[in-house]
């Protein structure tokens, strides 16, 4: 299965807004660059599993709540 057959979308922007975090603040909390946060929010970059867990732990939610797997 190649990456054209599936899509993973996320609600990072929504959860970030709910917590009133700026992209810079979220990037610092996760130990990544602001460009990475922008890329994830725009579904341009798929984060690694450890980073996905880190995000879900930061927002105290399940990974499935924030990342959604879609088959095309």
């Amino acid at each position, binding site marked *: 299965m190649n990456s054209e057959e599936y899509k993973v979308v996320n609600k990072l922007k929504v959860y970030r807004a709910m917590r009133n975090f700026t992209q810079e603040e979220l*990037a610092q909390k996760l*130990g*990544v*660059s602001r460009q*990475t946060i922008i*890329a994830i929010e725009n579904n341009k*970059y798929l*984060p*690694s599993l450890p*980073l996905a867990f880190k995000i879900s732990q930061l927002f105290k939610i399940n990974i499935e709540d924030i990342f959604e797997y879609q088959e095309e």
Partner: protein
Amino acid sequence: MSSMNIEKFKQIRVGVAFFVGFLVSIAVSIDSTVLALAAIITGIIFLVLARSKAKVVVDERDKTIREKAANITYAIFAPTIATGALLLILFGKGRYLYLESLGMVLAYLTCFLIVVYAISFWYLNKKYGGGNEL
């Protein structure tokens, strides 16, 4: 020097590049190897110190980009240089010794590149649990 952000580090990097370039151009004009070397070494030391003070985040996205860039570079560079080497050897054989020699150098370089790729691939394949297929 307290901690600095990435923007300041980038400004310092540009400043150092200009300074080193200026000194190297002076060194070339007065034919002074020592001055050129001193300028380059000073620039490197200053940048290393500035980088250690700056909060330069190299994260997983940067690593992914680097991996893909390296992959593309290899995929383009290896066949191009191999073809160039072959053409130079064929064209220069018996007629232009310097072209043939250059072709040989490029051919060995291609072999070296492929060997390095193969060794690193084998090592990484082992590291990430591959190579035990039955």
